[in-house]
């Protein structure tokens, strides 16, 4: 059964939203994500375009500037909530891991 939309975020969704804490042009997100993750996470251009459209439709980000085809975006309060929930979920996962393997390192 398909998961409800944005209940959990994929790594690519997570980093796109994270990089939009401050205003950023869509096209600059490629570099910002690469920089933030030390090139560990890459987002395809088609995926980036479609996810930005989906985040806009869901009200998780908003457009700040429109300069011809260059558009900048920033996270909305709703987007921050979604990101925060995902962070909590990841923390819980990390805590569960620690509880199981914590003492082995």
């Amino acid at each position, binding site marked *: 059964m398909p998961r409800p939309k944005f209940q959990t975020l*994929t790594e690519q969704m997570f980093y796109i939203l994270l990089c939009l804490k401050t205003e950023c042009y869509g*096209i600059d997100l*490629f570099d910002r994500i690469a920089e933030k993750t030390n090139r560990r996470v890459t987002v*395809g*251009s*088609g995926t980036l375009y479609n996810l930005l459209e989906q985040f806009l439709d869901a009200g998780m980000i908003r457009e700040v500037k429109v300069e011809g*085809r260059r*558009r900048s975006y920033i996270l909305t309060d709703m987007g921050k909530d979604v990101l925060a929930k995902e962070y909590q979920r990841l923390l819980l996962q990390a805590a569960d891991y620690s509880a199981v393997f914590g003492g082995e390192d």
Partner: protein
Amino acid sequence: MNELKHRLEFFSFYDHSGIEKHLGEMAEKGWLLKEIKRVTWVYRRIKPKKLHFAVTYYPNASDFDPEPQEGQMIYRDYSEYAGWKFVCQSAQMQIFYNEEEEPIPLETDPVVEVQTIHKAAKKSFLLPHFIILGLSILQAALFISRLLDDPIGLLSSTTNLSTGFCWVLLFLLCVIELCGYYRWHNKAVKAAENGEFLETHSHTLFHRMILAASVFLLVYQLINMLSTGKRMMLTIYVLLIGYMITLIAVVNAVTQFLKRKKVSRGANLAVTLIVDFALAFAMIAAITFGTLRASQSGLFHPEEDTYEYGGMTFILYQDEIPLSVGDLQDIDFDGYIRESRESESIFLGQRVVHQWPRHDTSPTVKVPSLSYTLTIIKEPALYDWCKDGLLKKRTDKAEEDGVVFSRYYKEIDATPWLAKEAYQYHFGEGILNQYLLCYEDRIIEIDFNWEPTEEQMRIVAEKLAR
């Protein structure tokens, strides 16, 4: 050396994996896709090299857009930034290539990819295929209904059989395309849940077979019409092929012209639809009216004389017929029309013959006339079905002066007809001189306007049953 190459390609709308692989192979052979036209894909010559291709879908795009939408251009900007060069688009499908050895794919999230393809498919792939599937099922129902109602009429006509077969091909095409799509989509959704991409399967061989069967049908029909010398049918057939080609060419030209003039998508769609319907209606009306007039004026039978009666022109058919009134009795009358119409398929052959006096014959002149239908059954398994079909077709009720009469065939002694079985037509209490005669490989239905003698019955058998 040609710098351009036109190819017929047989890919399903959603078959992005197949298209990407094929375009990569073409590039390695020195051909890069330049443009997708209505019928063919155009390639331009390049230095052979290894290129990566990506086929993506932009669901909001349309063939009627005067130019790419802003969103599409942003999409292309992102892709170009990532090293993907735009090749061309066809409606919602966009094709890119990348020269890097290991480029970052255009789609890195399988869930988003499947959602985008499905959104695009719902708009321009699934709906038209479901409509054609519905129409082909309706045609199949009509075909079966006619097969039960009039098996001889249907099975003896190559045109009817070919038309039915065309609908079968369309039905198969839709079933394969829709099943193929949903099969891929269901699996792709599950795979995407696990973060995996699922490649599509190509049905190019099946598409080629459908095209080959369609071309075979067209040629077979043409040869059949040329060999049977049916000038009118041949003319209509050629006109209909011309009609289809003209309609597609004109509608495409209108759409492209309006796109060049930067007319909006909605206006382009509306004008194209209006031109499509108006042209289709006008051309069908012209073909119908033209062939009717040509037929009435005897254009399709230049060797036959015509005569005028009641303000209309009639053709004085003098066809060769296997049994004439003169074979059955001495008659001194030269005002007969002898008309013979034949149709034939791989299952049945049918010949309908009339020998009637001309319409302008004085009503006071009483001359014998004769009509018969000769049905030759090539496939023995169809014999009983055809016979029962004929008996059933002639069994009905008719009302005359408020009285209801039953009409039906009743079995009679077949010996005088030298037949296996013989039936005579009854109208209420009355008996008509209309007979259904069953021989080894043929069924004859014959109608006299006099009561035939035993000698005449024997002549009928000798002339028609051999």
